[in-house]
């Protein structure tokens, strides 16, 4: 194998699994250490810079970081990264003074942003302080988009949305609430320098099976119903409710229904339990509220009597896998199942819809009605029009919308400075020694097995009595400190210097995870088998260094390294050192140009 180039920004970034997995590449271990130090405001600002909505994401993020967490590989449960983020938001002091100020001078460029959801607000956050005139349009009176309309208040209170959307709008962003954009052509005619489409994926899929029309009064599209609930237009639902669908919207629907009078609420899903799209913790939350989930049932017919829904008939299916491992649901050959009900909520998926973009406005669409958008620059076929969030590539989640927003802002900033937007900026990287004394490091390197701490919940009875009472209470500072202590500080990297190494084996002997091997070089496949512990996790790199006196190489499997620094403590010559790797994605501004 070739020696590893640890100066490439991507190498250590990949070792910080959480930050690598995060679409916005938030420096997770850095802010967790700040939380442990009680510096909640500092932890919040690191988050805010990177993901714009720490309080919102700390409650609702899909947390791609957590399955990636190294604790999963060395223990079992990941660090509760998402809920620690919320701690930063809950316990920070007033951070208004630390926010960027509205630009005193404008640069004369005008940006229109369609939809006041996370993608548009991120673009505005990045561009407004640079002097851009940002105008955000939304059909609703308040900013927030789907964060406000589709996420139930018992998961995300309005106060949190207000606070964090206001931080953006206070940067001198013009918000035109209650102004729905109905024509792209008209908007283009207003001669903005750039237009950002962040209008989400606003259309819920329907279910066209017999009885749909006849029983329409009691059949509701999930996301529409959720926004009606959130706008206080709907206050009740029938006693017996069936929720169709297995995603997070279905979980929000069933839990909302429980709070609006649904006593017998059940979720019915086509797939098996494990294949459901809903996040495991959202399924757990539904289960905690006494909502059963029935799997492998495909809706066949809505039963109705005199225009009133009476039940749903389901066909039993089973999963079969073809030679390529693709799943197919085939009839199980068992009798149909009928559940009686008063209302049905259909949460079987969301679609993009752009009825307001004229097809001759200069924006190309593909055969599925999706705009053709560049995956890196987010530019459409119209050079002035950019897409971000769910509007760009279909439904994902908030953190992806934020990541898109940053990229859109970079594209616009470069474009309006006459630069090639395909040239993307590298991230800013720092690598700094962490040694404080003979056996002292700037971080807590004493790692031990420690199970994940549970977030306290409101008791069921009081939670179910209100549609607005937040269920999760969040970690208190003591629990947060304990949970923060589980972080393995994967951003404090083991850095090896071959010229200093005397090959005494001290690091090999002391490494608790058998990560380090001194051996003859070879091809990667062969080398992986020959290490002290075979390196079978191919998603994790092998750190190789040559230039040793014996002609061997040092090979370190990054897979389960605890970043405990014992190799550096035991090294007599300082050939091993612990260096903190800090990576920040370059946002719009002079640094990206």
């Amino acid at each position, binding site marked *: 194998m070739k020696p590893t180039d640890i100066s490439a920004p991507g190498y250590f970034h990949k070792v910080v699994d959480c930050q690598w997995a995060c679409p916005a590449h938030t420096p997770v271990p850095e802010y967790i250490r700040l939380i442990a130090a009680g510096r909640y405001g500092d932890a919040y600002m690191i988050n805010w810079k990177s993901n714009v909505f720490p309080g919102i994401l700390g409650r609702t993020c899909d947390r791609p970081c957590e399955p990636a967490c190294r604790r999963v590989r060395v223990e079992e449960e990941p660090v509760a990264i998402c809920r620690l983020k919320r701690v930063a938001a809950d316990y920070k002091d007033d951070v208004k003074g630390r926010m960027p100020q509205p630009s005193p001078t404008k640069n004369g460029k005008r940006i229109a942003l369609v939809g006041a959801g996370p993608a548009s607000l991120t673009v505005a956050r990045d561009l407004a302080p640079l002097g851009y005139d940002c105008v955000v349009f939304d059909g609703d009176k308040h900013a927030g988009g789907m964060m406000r309309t589709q996420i139930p208040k018992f998961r995300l209170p309005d106060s949190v949305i207000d606070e964090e959307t206001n931080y953006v709008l206070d940067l001198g962003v013009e918000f035109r609430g209650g102004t729905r954009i109905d024509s792209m052509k008209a908007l283009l005619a207003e001669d903005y320098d750039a237009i950002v489409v962040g209008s989400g994926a606003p259309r819920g899929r329907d279910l066209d099976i017999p009885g749909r029309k006849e029983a329409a009064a009691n059949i509701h599209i999930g996301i529409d119903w959720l926004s009606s609930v959130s706008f206080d237009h709907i206050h009740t639902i029938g006693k017996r409710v069936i929720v169709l669908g297995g995603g997070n919207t279905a979980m929000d629907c069933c839990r909302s229904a429980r709070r609006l009078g649904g006593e017998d609420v059940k979720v019915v899903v086509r797939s098996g339990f494990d294949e459901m799209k809903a996040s495991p913790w959202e399924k757990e939350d539904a289960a905690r509220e006494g909502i059963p989930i029935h799997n492998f049932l495909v809706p066949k017919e809505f039963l109705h009597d005199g225009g009133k829904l009476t039940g749903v008939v389901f066909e039993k299916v089973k999963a079969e896998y073809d030679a390529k491992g693709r799943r197919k649901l085939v009839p199980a050959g068992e009798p149909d199942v009928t559940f009686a009900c008063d209302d049905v909520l259909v949460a079987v998926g969301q679609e993009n819809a752009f009825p307001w973009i004229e097809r001759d406005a200069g924006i190309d669409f593909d055969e599925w009605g999706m705009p053709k958008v560049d995956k890196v620059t987010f530019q459409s076929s119209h050079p002035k029009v950019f897409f971000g969030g769910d509007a760009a590539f279909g439904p994902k989640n908030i953190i992806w919308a934020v990541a898109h927003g940053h990229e859109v802002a970079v594209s616009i900033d470069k474009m309006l400075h006459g630069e090639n937007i395909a040239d993307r900026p590298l991230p800013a990287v720092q690598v700094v020694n962490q040694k404080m004394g003979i056996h002292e490091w700037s971080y807590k390197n004493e*790692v031990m097995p420690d199970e994940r701490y549970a977030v306290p919940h409101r008791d069921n009875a009081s939670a179910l009595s209100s549609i607005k009472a937040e269920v999760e209470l969040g970690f208190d500072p003591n629990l947060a400190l304990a949970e923060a202590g589980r972080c393995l500080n994967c951003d404090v990297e083991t850095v090896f210097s071959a010229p200093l190494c005397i090959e*005494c*084996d001290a690091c090999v002997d002391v490494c*608790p995870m058998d990560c380090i091997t001194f051996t003859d070089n070879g091809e990667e496949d062969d080398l992986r088998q020959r290490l002290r512990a075979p390196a079978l996790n191919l998603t994790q790199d092998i750190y190789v260094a040559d230039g040793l006196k014996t002609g061997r190489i040092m090979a370190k499997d990054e897979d389960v390294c605890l970043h*405990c620094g*014992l190799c550096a403590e*035991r090294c007599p010559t300082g050939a091993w050192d612990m260096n903190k790797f800090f990576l920040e994605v370059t946002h719009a501004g002079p640094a990206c140009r």
Partner: protein
Amino acid sequence: MTYLAKPKFHHPSLPKNAIGFTRRDYEASTSTLCAGCGHDSISAAIIEAAFELSIEPHRVAKISGIGCSSKTPDYFLGASHGFNSVHGRMPSVLTGANLANRDLIYLGVSGDGDSASIGFGQFAHALRRGVNMVYIVENNGVYGLTKGQFSATADRGSKSKKGVFNTDNSIDLVSIALQLGATFVARSFSGDKSQLVPLIKAAIQHRGAAFIDVISPCIAFNNHAGSTKSLEYVRAHNEAVNALDVMIGRDPITVNYAPGKVVSVTQHDGTVLNLRKINDEYDPGDRLAAMNFLQKHAALGQIVTGLLYVDSEADDLHSNFNTVSTPLNQLDTAALCPGSVTLETINDSLR
């Protein structure tokens, strides 16, 4: 060194041995030796050997004297018996323990100061008597605990860290062990576990006095240019005569060797030692030749390592003394005091 205990975490694929222990189960408290100490590597090699042999930790007694080396039994086999004795007196304490309970595995750990100076006489007599033990000397050529004076094994002409040349002749413990009749004699290097671990395993399986001289560079006081016991010097002058594969009892022998290249030695317990020859003229069964070979190569400035001599038919102190086969602590009153009738019979036989 480090003050931190090694985390309890281990690699997910960490294997278990025949009695269900992992290598980590043979570890002990955190070493307080200097960072990079060769002794820590030897401790790691002992851990590895005990793990691979599936030794029950409570069947081992670790006995040591005084010095950096003699601290190390605290850092391996934490669940075994231990006795940290007076300076240079490990061999007699070990001999006594062995006489009292012949069923345990005796691991004597000593250093060049402990064995070649203050305990030189003890070293000689334990080997001479053929005590069934593994006697490991962690040999760094300096007194590390008192900041690096030459020890008795430092080579004449080698240079101290302060720049002083050694004017005394050195004691070669391996040559003396051969002369005194040790029945398993080896030399190795802390920086080469692939050689050291099989030697320790073979020594544990050997019946009789097994002696291993392990050159163990002192990183703090004897790892500089001019030292003949530095990592670099030993690597450059290491002359391995053979490479050892230890085949335990029922293990299927899967290694294929080129004919003529291997000497197989079956020990009393059925363990097969396959010695792959590196030096063709070397015969580990010939004590006289071994002694000559060592002297010849020492004169050339080479450090001969490997399994230098083994007598697979060796007896030990117990068979020489014809002692009772049961450990003393298992002898009950009936066995120890067979009664007046038996006494009469014995007395009658002596009239």
